[in-house]
């Protein structure tokens, strides 16, 4: 078997990374506990927001790994581990859903028995929207995703010690099997945890809307870590502008994809003008929410679009770093817009509780990355495609 010409030497992450992650994690945990003691309802919404963000990020990172196997992509082999390091979020994110499960009444209107009894629509929906089935779906999604996470990532890891092509072959099959399960799972997460916040409302494009945003954030996180690791000289030198150009281009593509989906949803609902659909958007134009809603177009579409549209900007490290941070927060903005309009209908509310949970999320991702990084190789040294990745040019 041909040996890879790349000789991997493990470099430690800068110590400030771990310290900062730990600090953010601790601040976040303290803030979250304090928030649950003081304002349980508001904290539940924030916790839900964090769960939905991290779950989407974890699942879409797994999707990216599977996509690379499935499409036989070459350029991304050296980046794949960064996505793989994000996939444990599939197991970590549900922790933030647990407080919500104990606080269902504050968050989900459909859990109120008396409201359902006096409401014809909710009665019709109750075979789906009831707590038991909700919990079953939640556990099923986590179970299936965790299974694929375990199998795909384990095979990828085993290949480092034993560079055998059979692991790649098995993972390609697993990736193909994953795809339909992934599509259904991410749709269920979006319907259960985001759409059912307004149980009367429905939108058939909503699953894809959440998927588009989550995949965008997965790309942004991947790009941010890649650029930072490149800055710290941890990523090997062969990863040059041509490799990073693909990250930038895909990020740009998914900015457009998100905008396309978001606009399709708006256009159809606006054009059909059916009251049971439009009220969701009308609620999002209440009070100061209207500026927030219009800002969403600017934040998640126009600014990243303009910043990434030209060819050189897609491989400019500084631009990529700024825009990946921007997009990570733009997706947060998007989810905040989806979740918080249910909590406060009158206008935007943003305070230490929300910031605390965001800090907690960043801390979790950083500490998780540090932990997984210490256990595993950053470059899949046994991957048969690595040589072609090293030689990759546009």
């Amino acid at each position, binding site marked *: 078997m041909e040996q890879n010409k790349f000789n991997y030497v493990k470099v430690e992450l800068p110590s400030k990374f771990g310290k900062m992650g730990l600090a953010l994690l601790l601040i976040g945990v303290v803030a979250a506990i304090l928030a649950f003691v003081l304002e349980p309802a508001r904290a539940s919404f924030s916790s839900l927001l964090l769960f939905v963000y991290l779950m989407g990020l974890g699942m879409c990172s797994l999707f990216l790994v599977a996509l690379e196997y499935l499409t036989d992509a070459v350029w991304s082999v050296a980046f794949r581990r960064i996505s793989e390091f994000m996939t444990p979020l599939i197991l970590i994110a549900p922790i933030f859903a647990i407080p919500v499960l104990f606080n269902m009444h504050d968050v989900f209107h459909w859990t109120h028995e008396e409201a359902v009894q006096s409401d014809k629509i909710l009665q019709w929906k109750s075979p789906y929207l009831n707590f038991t089935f909700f919990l079953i779906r939640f556990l099923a999604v986590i179970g299936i995703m965790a299974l694929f996470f375990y199998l795909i990532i384990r095979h990828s890891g085993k290949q480092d010690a034993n560079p055998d092509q059979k692991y790649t072959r098995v993972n390609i099959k697993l990736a193909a099997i994953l795809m339909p399960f992934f599509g259904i799972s991410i749709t269920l997460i979006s319907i259960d945890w985001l759409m059912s916040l307004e149980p009367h409302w429905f939108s058939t494009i909503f699953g894809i809307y959440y998927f588009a945003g989550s995949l965008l954030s997965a790309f942004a996180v991947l790009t941010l870590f890649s650029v930072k690791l490149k800055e710290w000289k941890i990523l090997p030198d062969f990863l040059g502008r041509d490799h990073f150009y693909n990250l930038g281009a895909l990020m740009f593509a998914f900015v457009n994809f998100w905008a396309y989906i978001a*606009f399709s949803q*708006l*256009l159809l609902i*606006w*054009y059909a*003008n059916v009251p049971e659909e439009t009220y969701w958007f009308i609620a999002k134009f209440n009070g100061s929410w209207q500026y927030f809603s219009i800002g969403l177009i600017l934040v998640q579409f126009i600014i990243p679009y303009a910043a990434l*549209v*030209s*060819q*050189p900007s897609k491989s400019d490290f500084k631009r990529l770093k700024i825009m990946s941070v921007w997009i990570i927060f733009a997706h947060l903005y998007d989810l905040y817009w989806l979740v918080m309009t249910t909590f406060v209908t009158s206008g935007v509310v943003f305070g230490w509780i929300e910031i605390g949970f965001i800090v907690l999320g960043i801390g979790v991702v950083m500490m998780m990355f540090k932990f997984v990084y210490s256990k595993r190789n950053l470059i899949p040294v046994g991957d048969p495609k690595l040589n072609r990745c090293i030689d990759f*040019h546009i």
Partner: protein
Amino acid sequence: MESKKIYSVVGLFDTADEIIHASEKVVEHGYKKFDIHTPFPVHGLNQAMKLKPSPMGYFALVFGLTGTAIALLTMAFMMTFDYPLNIGGKPLFPLPAFISVTFEVTVLLASIGTVLALLFVFFKMPHNSHPLHDSNYMKKCTTEMFGVCLEAEDEKFNEADARSFLENLAAKEIETIYIEKEEVPAIFSKPFIGFLVFTIVLVSGATYFVTNKLMFMQPFNWMMDQHRVDVQSISTFFPDSFSMREKVEGTVPRGFMPEDYKESPDSAGMYLQNPLEYNEKNIALGKRKFLTYCSPCHGNLAKGDSRLLDNFPKPPTLHSKKLREWSDGRIYHVITFGQGVMPTYAKQVTREERWAIIQYIRTLQKALNPAEEDFNGAK
């Protein structure tokens, strides 16, 4: 020929590595206007040549934004200012509805504009020849070798220097390319212009012929021109030249048998008999016609309670004692000649249908005011 202008000095190399090395040297030496020709794409050549990013993006941007502006302004002018239309209660400037079209026009103009810019700005249409065409150098470059072309337009260019420079790089073959002659673009040549004029005359002439002449030619006219007199045309047969004739006195055209008893409804009631047999088929026909022509005023059950009530002289019920005692012929007279406000229905309802309607009216009357004997056998 002393006046031959130099286009460039070219050198050929054997391998891709050599050409990358050569292009690095060319850049180092300070040449700005030069080109590399290879038989297949060579990775890393862009970097070695220090090529700037292609300016095509700016053409795409400008044309795309032009498309955006054209689409939005056109739609806004038409839908908002020139002919404002309220469509489904949407605002007069419905931006979300415009976005799709704007996007399409943007993409269309950007792509068309990019192709046109490519052709006219970079490929210098309508010029279609190049000094390198048909040269030995280009033949080699498209098959087996890698070439460097140092163009004479460059400030640093000097034929002797360029040749010695390429020799130092160990180029296999070195050649000087001359500009043969000032090219006259093919579209300005006389045959092409003649061809254009010919095409213009032919196409417009053919269009005129087809739309104005051919369309009105009759391939055959056996059905158009027949041996009969057309309505309102002059007759050459009759002395008074009228093609429309009056009836011959004392005759009746087929299907136009005049109605009797026009002025005497009582005689009609006395002498006219219902010619139709009372059966389900006739009653069903009567029902259909009654619901079409009678029910709008008399009501579905002939009670005089139609939806026209209070908006129209009150139509009478057909269940009154008078009506029930009227003979079929008397009712027939009313339908045929009208009564009071009710106009004649002779035009809309045929004789047979009129009798059928009367059968249906009788059925309704029996249903609402049954006589004792109607219950016979139903006890």
